[in-house]
């Protein structure tokens, strides 16, 4: 997935072996799902040398969840948004949730490239300002849950509206909080792809989820479920 993962642990009793298991799991996920490795199941599905029915249970689970989220987001979250099969947008959050479950620590934060799984807080979480890379535009205090941000301020992060193939207009960043990182990340991606229509869509997110959208030139729209301090 080409993504740095950092574990923050505030628990002297946490066994290093748990963290080793969590990172070993993430490497296994990369081997199964990487679009850069020709031997991964995802690459073989795309190449037509592996049928979905013959893929492993983890890959089938992820593809099923991608399909459910595609329906739930009106097609704005799409594992084929750029043509080729690429479920990375769901895999990252899904894999980090499972990695966190492998770590027996009272207080844990897993950070996968700015998308977070939090346990045993309080954790003070800053949301990166979409234009000023070393500033924050919001601060959250969370005991547990997930935080995901979609934006295009970094190279390599290109979100297109799957319906038009073009980058959305008028949106700078979308951050979603909620109980599950895979869903929060998919919702943030979908809302970003909707552009200026995203904030109204986030108002209908399921219970437990909240969203903050930054629109051009600097309008911040947040849902009732969003709790910044």
């Amino acid at each position: 997935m080409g993504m740095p993962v950092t574990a923050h642990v505030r628990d002297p009793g946490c066994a290093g072996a748990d963290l080793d298991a969590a990172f070993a799991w993430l490497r296994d996920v990369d081997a199964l799902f990487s679009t850069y490795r020709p031997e991964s199941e995802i690459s073989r599905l795309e190449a037509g040398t592996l049928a979905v029915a013959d893929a492993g249970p983890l890959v089938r689970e992820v593809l099923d969840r991608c399909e459910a989220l595609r329906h739930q987001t009106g097609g704005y979250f799409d594992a084929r948004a750029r043509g080729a099969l690429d479920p990375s947008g769901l895999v990252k959050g899904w894999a980090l949730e499972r990695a966190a479950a492998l770590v027996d620590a009272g207080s844990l934060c897993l950070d996968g490239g700015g998308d977070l799984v939090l346990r045993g807080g309080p954790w003070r979480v800053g949301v990166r300002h979409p234009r000023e890379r070393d500033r924050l535009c919001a601060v959250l205090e969370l005991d547990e849950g997930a935080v995901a941000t979609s934006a295009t301020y970094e190279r390599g992060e290109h979100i297109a509206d799957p319906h038009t193939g073009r980058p959305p207009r008028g949106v700078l960043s979308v951050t979603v909080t909620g109980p599950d990182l895979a869903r929060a990340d998919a919702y943030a991606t979908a809302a970003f792809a909707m552009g200026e229509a995203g904030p109204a869509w986030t108002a209908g997110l399921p219970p437990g989820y909240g969203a903050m959208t930054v629109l051009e030139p600097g309008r911040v729209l947040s849902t009732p479920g969003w709790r910044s301090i």
Partner: protein
Amino acid sequence: MLLSGDGPHTEALNARAEPILRESALEAGSADVDVVSGATSTSEIWLDSLQGAIDKARRGR
């Protein structure tokens, strides 16, 4: 209820959803935080990013 992507149904739902959104102006602040959420996506960028700076500062403590 989730809104579908487009069409008249969505517009009707959006018209109801809009008033419950809170609007504020974009601020640029700094605060003592444990971690930062953002769309950093490669290790090169990460090393140079705010989270990278926080992690470096922690290691130095």
